[in-house]
């Protein structure tokens, strides 16, 4: 079964924990990727997901979560997109992320909030989809 949740973060710990969290709390698989390059490599799987959670900064000098967002939009990604960032609200990259209209979650965010938000999105998708 294809993963409903796409998670893009350069931290190995975060990817492992998000996968565990989605499985244990929601019973859902999570496609956890570390870079825009691997996102492109997993194109079909990524584009079929219902929800994308993108880390804004994917490492110095590397394509960012904003590049991932643009790539998803350019490839007609239908799902919801959220940015997850540890940067300040006034950081230029976060400002740009806010301008996309996608939701922005600031690290550290309580796991319960993420779980309930994802649960709501998946439920809406079930109703409408």
């Amino acid at each position, binding site marked *: 079964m294809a993963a409903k949740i796409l998670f893009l973060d350069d*931290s190995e*710990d*975060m990817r492992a*924990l*998000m996968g*565990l*969290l989605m499985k*244990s*709390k929601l019973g859902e698989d999570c496609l956890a990727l570390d870079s825009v390059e691997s996102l492109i490599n997993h194109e079909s799987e990524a584009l079929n997901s219902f929800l994308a959670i993108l880390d804004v900064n994917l490492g*110095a000098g590397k394509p960012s979560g904003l590049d991932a967002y643009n790539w998803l939009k350019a490839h007609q990604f239908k799902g919801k997109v959220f940015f*997850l960032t*540890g*940067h*300040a*609200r*006034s*950081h*230029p990259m976060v400002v740009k992320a806010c301008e996309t209209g996608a939701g922005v979650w*600031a*690290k*550290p*965010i*309580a*796991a*319960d909030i993420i779980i309930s938000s994802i649960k709501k999105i998946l439920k809406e998708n079930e109703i409408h989809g």
Partner: protein
Amino acid sequence: MNPVASSLLSTTLGAVFLGASLALGLVSSGLSIIFYFRLKHRSLLHFALTILISYFVLGTLNRDPMQIFDVGADPLNLRFIQVITAAGGYFFYRLVLSAFPPHASPSQLPVSFFKGFFFLAVFARVIILFSMNETTIRFASLTTGCFELITIAYVLSHPISTRSMQLNKAGCCLFSLGLMVYPLTRAGILPAMPSQKFGPLIMLGTLSVVSTVWLFALVEYARERLEEAEMASLKNMARAFIQLRDLMNTPLQTIEFSMSLLPDDFRKDNLPLERIDHALSQLRSVNVALAKFEKDVDWEQEDNFFDISEISENSPEKRADSFFNSQAPSSHLDLRESK
């Protein structure tokens, strides 16, 4: 002795005035040179040279500004004064340009206008060197007077931003006004009589006032630079705090996720876990407290105070790894030796 100096030295008040004026000129130009070596702003050097040359020219002036028309008196000396005056004019021109650089403001007099009049005045001085007569001297004086007037207009139309610039503006305008007396008298625009009597005194008074104003401008400028440095260091500190906080957020999120993944029965009455939870909430409070520095951060700067890859390289785990790795070859060596 110079007639201006000798007439001033004949009275106590005059001697005090001359001494105070020279002291002001030397102190302000000396401080400008010192500040120039520290702050590297060219206007400081140009001011010092302008003031020093102006005092020198004043020392060579005769009481009567009209006497310069007596070209037969000492033509070499007159030409020398012309060259020195032109050099003073050049440094004043550079001072105005460096202190009041061309601005995009539509209200400012075009810099080309200012430059054009300067080069016209210099051209007129060059003519004097080759053909010194009443007409060329009058023409040179007229162009110099016009240059001084244009300088006032240019400086006054410059949009000022700081207190030191305002003082500098006042100094430049006063300097131009005071120095206009001689050229305008020679050009026949001002009557000869008051200039003949008070010309050198007006010039000495002008130099004293300008030196005083410039001293205040220097103090203001130094204070502004200190404030700028203080602001820059505050911004750097704010950036360092925010970058550090941002680097902390992913590990904090990792702890947050890890805690939520622990089974409920494991969490129940687990004191160490409660302490971790408490520490986590304290770290969140630190995070919130650091948010107040966000408004002072200049995101235009690209360099980072903290490089996460560098921090990871220097982490205790990595240091331990590198220690054991560096020990490994020697342990092999020991084994071989023991054999």
